[in-house]
């Protein structure tokens, strides 16, 4: 997916060793938890229910548009049971709305990712869309927002366009754009009641947001997915293309903010956000495909001779990695690394807090 960087094994080794220092020295001078600046705007397309555009400072740009359609809810099992359920519920009139909402299903959200120059059924693109979709639905609350009544529901189409060529792994960019687009999404206000055919208020100004803004906003917000790489013992957030090329492992960490109302009337004025880790996935970093370096002791072109001792040395060099000689990383992520990633993300005032604070600064049109 991400384009192969054209770095020699020596360059890779140099980059790897400077990134695994403590504190790491990154090529662009950032600290390990620092993000690159970005510009964002929402509500750019009046023809959609919600839209957002984000430009990262490396020039990559994405646009997300959300469209909603009404769809008739069909019985997942195709039996009479469901018909009875609808009838009995409409007979009583109302019933327990919360229980009904639990019938909401994740498949009501459809997501596509378009990357120029790639086929739309490309495995990487489909994986990316599914990764983002899964993170959104993982809180279990999202689908319930699409429930209208027992017979109808909203079907939400989320189309993600990557405008620029894929310079680096676009996952964080797409995730942040999706987050903003969903915050800007509004659905028409429902006028009808109960299980009758839905009727909507045609005043767009009265349309409520999918994620309510001010006042008593409780419940989870749309999730964000961050890309984290581990190089040696250091953990780097928002990796650039070069950093991804030497990563020992790359992880997509999805988390969502849950707003809870504090009604205890306590002294706490500052209602801190509660963060919830939604999912964590490993991503195959492009470093796995880099060619290994050859140590100068084993380099036949440098020494000019090839006797048996040197062949032995060469074999040894292949078995045991030497300092300063690049070797593509193998194996998984150590538990200590996973643990410290989680710590860095979830701690108070940590990376996620910083990102969410930044996103709150975006003016939602």
């Amino acid at each position: 997916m991400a384009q192969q960087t054209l770095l020699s094994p020596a360059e890779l080794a140099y980059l790897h060793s400077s990134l695994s220092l403590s504190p790491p020295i990154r090529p662009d001078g950032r600290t390990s938890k620092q993000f690159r600046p970005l510009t964002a705007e929402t509500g750019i397309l009046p023809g959609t229910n919600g839209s957002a555009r984000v430009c990262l400072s490396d020039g990559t740009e994405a646009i997300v548009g959300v469209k909603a359609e009404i769809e008739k809810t069909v019985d997942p099992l195709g039996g009479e049971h469901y018909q009875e359920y609808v009838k009995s519920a409409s007979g009583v009139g109302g019933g327990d709305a919360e229980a009904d909402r639990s019938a909401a299903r994740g498949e009501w959200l459809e997501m596509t990712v378009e990357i120029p120059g790639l086929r739309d059924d490309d495995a990487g693109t489909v994986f990316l869309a599914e990764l983002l979709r899964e993170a959104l639905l993982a809180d279990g609350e999202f689908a319930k927002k699409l429930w209208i009544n027992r017979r109808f529901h909203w079907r939400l189409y989320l189309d993600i366009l990557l405008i620029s060529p894929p310079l680096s792994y676009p996952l964080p960019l797409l995730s942040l754009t999706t987050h903003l687009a969903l915050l800007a999404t509004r659905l028409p206000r429902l006028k009808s009641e109960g299980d009758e055919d839905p009727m909507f208020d045609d005043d767009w100004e009265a349309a409520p947001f999918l994620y309510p803004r001010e006042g008593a906003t409780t419940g989870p917000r749309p999730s964000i997915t961050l890309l984290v790489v581990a190089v040696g013992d250091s953990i780097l957030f928002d990796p650039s293309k070069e950093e991804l090329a030497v990563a020992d492992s790359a992880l997509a960490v999805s988390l969502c903010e849950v707003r809870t109302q504090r009604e205890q009337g306590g002294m706490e004025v500052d209602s801190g956000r509660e963060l919830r880790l939604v999912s964590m996935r490993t991503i195959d970093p492009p470093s796995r495909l880099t060619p290994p370096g050859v140590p100068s002791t084993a380099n036949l072109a440098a020494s000019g001779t090839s006797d048996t001792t040197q062949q032995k040395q060469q074999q040894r060099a292949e078995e045991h990695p030497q300092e300063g000689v690049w070797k593509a990383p193998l194996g998984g992520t150590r538990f200590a690394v996973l643990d410290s990633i989680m710590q860095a993300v979830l701690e108070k005032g940590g990376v996620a807090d910083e990102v969410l604070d930044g996103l709150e600064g975006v003016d939602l049109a």
Partner: protein
Amino acid sequence: MPLDTSTYSLALLRIDGRRWNDLRRLHAQIHTQDAADGSSYLEMGHTKVMCVVTGPAEPQAGQQKRGTGGGGQAGGQKDGASIVVNVVVAGFSSVDRKRRGRNDRRIQEMEITIQKALAANLHVHLFPHSTITVSLHVLSQDGSLLAALINATTLALIDAGIPMTDYITACTAGSTSSYAAGDDSADPLLDLNTQEEQELPYLTVATLGDSDKVAVLVCESRVQVSRLEGMLVVGVDGCRQMRRLLDGIVRQKGSKMIKEGAVQRSDMMAVSLED
């Protein structure tokens, strides 16, 4: 919803209040994206497109196949750059969401049309063994899509600094009554929106610079041949207006770049910096 064309003869006003030869509001920006070699954003009424040009660059393994598919530059790797055009129509661009795959016939035809027009206009012989990739994104569509795509491509190629003969500007022209009405005295119309496109015969015409040289002419609807000339004349005139507008945008950007010091001012420049 059928378009009521009968009211046109009463006030000579179209459904959106324009006269027969009025263009819709045009808004365009050049250099909208820092990472790309050339980029542009263009709005014609409610049709909104974005264009990103990459290259001339070394051809990538995957792209080579598709680039040659469009004819024109097939096998022309040695003596000139090949041009690859990708059009992505966003699912949210139309009123009802409709997903169109990459293999959609209409999209492929637009890609090939743009590619052939560019191949004749750009000085590709200056860049042998390379590829110029044009990727177009349709964010919102309301008629004159191909025309908007061509205009956006021209702006992005100017931003990328790829030498070309002249601007290619495009515009649509239609006729006030449908083919079935058989009305030979029907007036021509300029710059149609979706409603008019669905109902009336129309063509898309692109011309080279200020001249009358037609670079692209696409007509997919049935129309009496006697009406064609009138439509074409109006279309070509619209292209000329369009060229003036695009040229204004390019000059505005150029003088802004000189004022900001992004470009050195030289004696060779014929740009007037009064405004």
